[in-house]
């Protein structure tokens, strides 16, 4: 701690200090384990079912994984910031149902698309405002909006599925393909790339990580932490809006009953990938792997003609297993404290 260096010139020391660590040291080990598991599951299904490793099925798998991936990338920011968003499934259902209704009412597809995105973002910002500016824990806020958002959609549609005319541009989005992959899959890829850059290469990402580690330290560094937290939750709402549009376009209908339990699949994918539920550590690559793994399990089980009712059971079981692994050595106490007390 002197301003004059005692031994040698400062340059070599500085160079040594700034030397980047090896690739191995930088790799998230939890993500690596999950990548290996994903590969094993992939090999297992490829051997167990001849239909699994076909281009048609892989392309289909990519389409199925896309909504989880898109919302998962945004959820990675939310969870890394030490927050949680339980309302994404409800927002997906809301956006898909309301978009279908608006199309039925004769709105133009482009306007409906914009409206869908804005609705998703709007719900996300409502969550974010209550969490960041009113100090209510995200767990509570999004648990409430999980109920409210789907409730509004149910009220509007009275629970009926709303058909989307296949002649609309909106519906054609669901069939659009490029190089054999659906629009959903491509959007999933783009969102992943954006998330990767945003989390690891921008100030916003750095503050998201910092807030998850020590919110007060980031605040004292002069950062508007409330805005960052609200933006993270707005981001997950927006992503849910995108997912809602893509799902409605693909299915050719919007339903307030769709995407039940979707939030659990998304959270499972994020945590599977190695993002810490305690906040402060997030990985987008991990979320990509986690989304593929959860999607692959569901897809493979369906191909093997296992009862579809088994999928939620397996997803839930995998989730608890992964959280257990995620928290091993850290204790469940800090997690509970964080979930129940953090605004």
């Amino acid at each position: 701690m002197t301003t004059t260096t005692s031994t040698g010139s400062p340059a070599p020391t500085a160079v040594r200090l700034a030397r980047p660590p090896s690739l191995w040291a930088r790799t998230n080990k939890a993500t690596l384990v999950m990548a290996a598991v994903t590969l094993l599951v992939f090999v297992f299904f490829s051997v167990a079912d001849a239909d699994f490793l076909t281009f048609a099925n892989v392309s289909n798998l990519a389409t199925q994984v896309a909504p989880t991936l898109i919302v998962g990338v945004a959820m990675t920011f939310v969870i890394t910031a030490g927050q949680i968003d339980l309302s994404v499934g409800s927002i997906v259902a809301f956006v898909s149902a309301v978009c279908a209704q608006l199309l039925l009412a004769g709105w133009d597809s482009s306007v409906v698309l914009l409206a869908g995105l804005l609705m998703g973002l709007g719900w996300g910002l409502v969550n974010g405002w209550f969490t960041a500016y009113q100090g209510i824990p995200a767990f509570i806020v999004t648990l409430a909006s999980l109920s409210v958002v789907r409730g509004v959609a149910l009220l509007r549609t009275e629970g009926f599925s709303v058909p989307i005319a296949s002649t609309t541009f909106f519906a054609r989005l669901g069939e659009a393909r490029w190089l054999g992959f659906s629009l959903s899959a491509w959007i999933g890829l783009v969102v992943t790339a954006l998330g990767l850059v945003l989390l690891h290469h921008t100030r916003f990402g750095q503050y998201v990580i910092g807030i998850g580690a020590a919110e007060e330290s980031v605040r004292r560094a002069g950062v508007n932490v409330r805005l960052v937290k609200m933006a993270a939750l707005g981001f997950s709402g927006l992503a849910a809006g995108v997912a809602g549009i893509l799902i409605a376009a693909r299915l050719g209908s919007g339903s307030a009953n769709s995407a039940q339990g979707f939030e659990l699949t998304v959270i499972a994918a994020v945590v599977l990938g190695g993002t810490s539920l305690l906040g402060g550590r997030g990985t987008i690559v991990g979320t990509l792997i986690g989304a593929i793994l959860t999607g692959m399990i569901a897809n493979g089980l369906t191909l093997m003609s296992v009862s579809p009712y088994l999928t939620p059971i397996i997803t839930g079981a995998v989730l608890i297993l992964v959280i257990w692994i995620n928290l091993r050595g850290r204790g469940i106490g800090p997690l509970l404290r964080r979930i129940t007390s953090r605004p």
Partner: protein
Amino acid sequence: MTDALLVELRGITKSFGPVRSLRGVDLTLRRGEVLGLVGDNGAGKSTLMKVLAGAVQHDDGEIRVRGRAVRFANPSDARAEKIGIVYQDLALCDTIDVAGNLFLGREPRRGPFIDRTTMHAEAARILAELDVKVASTHQEIGTLSGGQRQTVAIARAVSFAPDVLILDEPTAALAVAEVESVLRLIGEVAARGVGVILITHRLQDLFRVCHRITVMYEGTSVDDVPIGELDIERLVGLITRSEQREASA
């Protein structure tokens, strides 16, 4: 040291709900001056410094910096006035690396992206200059020792080139040699005209670097004495208020 006041706090009060942490504190600091701020645990020293650093907003009273009345709505306002602080709890982020913590809130950018190469090179230069003993700027803060964390926090505050440097128990976790370095650093920055406020419970250190001592007691400033008029016993008496207690007994 010059006579022009760098910082002037007058009648600062702050309550946290029913807890009246500050009940009217006065404090002055000149350029090139090292001011020792002492008082019992819970006297309100850290709270007062958080007010001066913009991390806590006071209820009443006046803050003047370079003669101008200011009001800090957040820490960046205070930073704009060139006030730097090492918090007692250091205010670091455990899962972010050394360079990221040094530049938290002011990361160098290229376009919209953090320029990590520059950030690490700059961080390494700062650490080498201050002879901070860490292995790499890529090391996560959470994996450092208590003393290393403290020196990183000090390096961060100093690297802002502040006009006012607040050190809230900066040597609590440091080994002998590192304490000496910090004391030397305080002398050096003060010689460059920086006003330093040092909070420490190591009274012997105060006598080595401070020009003046301000004593706080239960949320008020009770004494303001040039160091020349003090010895350890008198200082201990001022902190514990033993004379007053004897007088009132």
